[in-house]
């Protein structure tokens, strides 16, 4: 059964700027690193969620984008919102930190607080906890944003009644460089959910 599916909200976070549905959420771009930028966004979103500061960069990026998308729409715990995220660098940014803590015998000090973030799907766990989403979730690694795969996988979840809507995205953090595009797909929305449309939306510039 093929369903008509739509994108209701989408969000880009790149170059220290946030766009929600293509429009700037934070106007002033500033030349800073991600840790300062992410704190600024946290404040602008009026968040009060101390766990945020324990997260690694990948989780922070995914978490903030999910806030931007999900807060646009009223959601409650009963909503069956699946999460499907993709990226290129997996959790390598944090993997390198764990590796440097075990590389030398003299300075050997692995930390569970870092190690737990050496899995990309922890970012999905963080979003699930915040929004209480006890739903389908999966993290895939691809060479680049892959509209066809995301489209097909999200549709299969919706068509097989595994979810009522799907939070999809590309969330990559690697060596201080990052790129995030997240959106929500369901049977409700204004933008037709097609592979072509996803490709075009991903490429949007501010």
């Amino acid at each position, binding site marked *: 059964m093929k369903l008509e599916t739509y994108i209701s909200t989408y969000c880009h976070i790149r170059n220290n700027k946030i766009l929600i549905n293509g429009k700037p959420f934070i106007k002033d771009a500033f030349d800073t690193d991600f840790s300062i930028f992410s704190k600024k966004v946290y404040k602008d979103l009026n968040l009060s969620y101390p766990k945020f500061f324990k997260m690694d960069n990948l989780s922070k990026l995914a978490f903030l984008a999910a806030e931007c998308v999900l807060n646009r729409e009223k959601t409650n715990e009963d909503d069956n919102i699946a*999460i499907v995220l993709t990226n*290129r*660098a*997996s959790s*390598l940014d944090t*993997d*390198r930190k*764990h*590796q440097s*803590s*075990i*590389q030398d*015998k003299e300075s*050997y000090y*692995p*930390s*569970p607080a870092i*190690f*737990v973030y*050496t*899995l*990309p*799907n*922890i970012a*999905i*766990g*963080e979003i*699930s*906890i915040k*929004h*209480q*989403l*006890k*739903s*389908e*979730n*999966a*993290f*895939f*690694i*691809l*060479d680049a944003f*892959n509209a*066809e*795969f995301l489209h*097909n*996988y999200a*549709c*299969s*979840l919706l*068509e*097989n009644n*595994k979810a009522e809507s799907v939070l999809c995205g590309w969330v990559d953090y690697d060596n201080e460089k990052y790129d995030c595009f997240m959106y929500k797909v369901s049977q409700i929305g204004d933008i037709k959910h097609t592979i072509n449309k996803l490709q075009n939306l991903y490429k949007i510039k501010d």
Partner: protein
Amino acid sequence: MSKIYLTYNNIISSLGFTTTENIENISKDISGIEKIEDINLSQTPIYTSLVNTIKLDNTFKKLGNINDFTRLEKLMILSLHDVLTESNVKITPKTGLIISTTKGNIDVLDSSSKFSKKRAYLSELAKQIQRFFGFKNEAIVLSNACVSGVLAISVAKRLIKSDMYDNVFVVSGDIVSKFIISGFQSFQAISDSSCKPFSKNRTGINIGEAAASVLVTSQKENLAPDAVEILGDASCNDANHISGPSRTGEGLYRSMLSAFNEANIKTTEIDYVSAHGTATNYNDEMEAIAFDRINLEKVSINSLKGYYGHTLGASGLLESIVGMQSLYNNTLYASYGFDEIGVSKPLNIIKETTEKPLTTFLKTASGFGGCNTAAIFKKVL
């Protein structure tokens, strides 16, 4: 709605280089876990299950240059090669490749590695496998902690149903590395002896390495004798804690419920449960609670971690393949390492390998990030 099957398969582990070899050892109550002293893996001796390196290289030589590929790539290529050969499926633009791994070539980050650090990107690993066999499509890497191996089966099924592919080859694997061992040691989750899933005297996990592969297909014409149909599957998050399981087993319970709904069968129709059973206190307790909640407490159940340790991204697929052999051989394999029940809810742990007519089994897995997966399989008669 077309039916989806799991068919030709392979396991490469400490217990052998084919599924048959692995099953022979399991049926003889042989575990692949050993005490190992290797400073390159751990500063203290560890109990782990490793693939024999000399055997790996000697076997791989027939396929390629042993110096061109990482340890994990050799394991995955050998495993997948076996399945491609056995199945005789021709790779077309509608043939998919899914790779399930948690850490891929993470060992190349170590300064002692001769490989470029670029190889740590999972897409680089994917390209090596894809190119080796000439798959026409980009490989899809699934990295979803310890449920990856079972979830990969769901993903293959879903992509076939959505017409993206006709057939999907799934290869899963992870190696034992200093990276992984040190991390689990920092969590104080590693046992100082062979692991004892669901036992009173359990003291944590053993990490192991393996590669496992399977062909997922909708084509009934080319099925192996041990093929099974996937009746239902689901993956639900606990939404509770990133490194600890839910105390109520919520995500696992919901995953099983959703899988049963899709399969449209009752829990009484399940002949065997292949649990995750890592042998940590919290995990095994959580599983027992979830199985009790869904009324599976009387069904024969085991954990295979006593044979292999926790093989991370490979475990779910490896254990599903062993489950297929259980059905095919009509044999319940003993839950190795079990002594006395050590969880708060009753479970019918398989104490001795026994023959019994079997038709349907449930596979479950749970992992960091609060993820859980359940899948129900039925023998093709």
